[in-house]
């Protein structure tokens, strides 16, 4: 019981830290990440329920969510000011890369969806 209480306490503290220290831009991207994650989970549950026919459609949808998640996560990393030292890109460049990669991702996904 006390362990659970400890875990809850830690989580609450984490949440508070997050709310305070994360800039708004990053929070927006985080919300987007959550959305993408949820969509992916729902797709996966559907596949588990009804089987994998047509497999290519399931794969395409699932990989689309995974791809979007990865791209958004990488955008978030690049936009995070604390990482300025490791990456040498401007936020605009990061965003442009994000859009470009998305176009390619969607091209492939639509091709595969059948």
């Amino acid at each position, binding site marked *: 019981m006390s362990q659970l209480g400890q875990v809850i306490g830690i989580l609450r503290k984490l949440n508070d830290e997050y709310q305070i220290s994360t800039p708004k831009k990053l929070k927006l991207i985080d*919300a987007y990440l959550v*959305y993408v994650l*949820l969509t992916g989970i*729902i797709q996966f549950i559907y596949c588990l329920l009804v089987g994998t026919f047509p497999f290519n459609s399931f794969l395409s949808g699932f990989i689309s969510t995974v791809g979007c998640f990865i791209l958004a996560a990488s955008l978030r990393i690049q936009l995070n000011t604390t990482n300025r030292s490791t990456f040498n890109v401007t936020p605009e460049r990061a*965003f442009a890369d994000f859009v470009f990669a998305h176009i390619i991702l*969607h091209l492939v996904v639509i091709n595969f969806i059948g």
Partner: protein
Amino acid sequence: MTSTSLMRIIIFILPIFSWYITSTIASNLNIVNLNGLKAQFQTAIKSFSDVASLHYTLGGVKELGVQLPDSHCNDIKKLVDKSNVESIYHATEAAKTLVNCKLPAEDYRSTLTSVLQSDESKTADIYYAVCSSVNLGLNIDESNIEKRLNTLAKTDDSILSQAYGLLTGAQLSQPIAKYYADTINDLVQQADEIDGRILQYEGGIGTTAFIVNSFYEVAEKAGVSIKTDPKQLIKFATYFSSKRHVATLRSAYYLTKVFKHLCDNKNPVPIVVSRISPSAISPQNPSVLVSITNLLGQPVGEMSVVAESAKRKEDGVVVISKQKLIPKASDFSVYELPFYDTKIPRGFYTIHLTLTARNEGKLIGLTDNIIDVKVTSQGTIENAELIVADRDHGAQSKTYKLTYPNAQSDKLELDYHQKLTVKFQIKDKQSDEFMPVQQAFLRFTNKQSKKEIIYLAEATDNGNSQYKVEVDLTTNANDFRYQSDKYELVLILGDSLLQNAYEWILNNNVHLTFHEDSLPDKDYKNLYLPRQEIIHQFREDEKRPPNIVAFVFSTLALLPLLLLLILWLKLGFNLSGLPLGLSPLGFHISHGAAFALMFFYWKYLDMFQTIRYLALISIPLFLFGHRVLSTLAARREKKA
């Protein structure tokens, strides 16, 4: 002697040795199926369709010694085609066989003359024209024809053409015929040899008979004998006598003619040596009877026939050497060789015969004749035992001794944990030693369904040929289809060298009990009935979830979008900072167009079109995007 010189000697000797071996393989001449030829002609006589069949049938029948009535003359006149030289030839030849059949020579003169003068005529046509002219009594210019033949011989050197040349020569004067008769040997050299036993010409039996017949005709006209190697003649004779039936009347006619030539005492006559007694030698049939005739089955005069050797095929043991055969028939066509002797062991024997003609005649094929016989013996079954043993405890067994022909009187009950073994030996009564047999089987017959299950008895390899067959009621149960029933047990033995075969009922009442349930017999008859028709089934689509489920989940997948909007609004989506102007607008429009293109790609387009459109859209996208982002960057720089 060094090894290389030894090798050289061997290589030198071996071909000579093998040539001698092959040259002593005997010719297998058969007596001609004269009745078959007769029957063929007789069927043909009933109705004629063309003048060639008339010629062949009438000619063939005449050769066989039957004279046909003159009424056929009308048939000839009806069927002949006056404008065709071959037809005229057949007509005149057919008319020659009848007693009194005169054909109107004047009708044909024009055709014949034109053929003889035309440059287009082939050797065959020249022959037809010459032969018809001679038959009709018309004059022919011999020197002219000879010249024509010489010209044709230069242009057409096929064998058939040469044969026609010979036949034409046979119609002309004797010197010309002699000239052609000298070419016979060349023609014989051009024949094809098969297996070292047969000589033939390309074109089959009819053509070969026709060509060989032409040799005899021209030799007869020239007054010389056929100067060919007797071995070649025998090979031709082997080829001719090997056909029991021929398809066409032409082949039948020329075959008849050739056989008559080959049995004519003026020419070399091949001898046919064959066995007319049964092949098995036994006390009831102690001698070998050999018939010696010509190809048509006629006797050829007194001969001295000696059996040079009789060798056993298995090991070459010689049992008879240089024994003279006794003539049995008054026309000297049958000779006897006493063979049976208790000392001669069982086996297959080859007897080599050599013939010597008493009279001076031109008989060929006198050496290298072979007769095959077999000596059988009686056998007895000895030491027969039936052993019933337990599968697992092999020591517990019951042995029943059996004697042929007695069967076991009591019933035999066998269970699935037992096995049955039958052992026996067969002894040759004459030589008193155990022998192997070619067939040794143990047969179970289901008394109800009459189904037979047969097992092979195998012998040990050592000298005493102990046979054993083992049936295990668990491993072999499937052979019986697990049918526990009453069976009959029979031992079957047989051999080509045994005088008696055995079908010995060992036990009439064998109860077999198997562990598993019985399976029905395989219905082998059904294997040959039409099978069930297979109707092609297209691949069925995989089952998909019902539409409702899919719809629900689609909306469920879209719900997080709502959540996102709510979260973004809560976080304070900075819509106010959105720059307005051409570039941002352009950027957003082209960006949206890219996504719209994706939708169209999914629905309507293919990859190539999409790529083209995408390339088109990406130009403004990059342009505007670059502008917007640089504006934003500038704005950020300004803020900082």
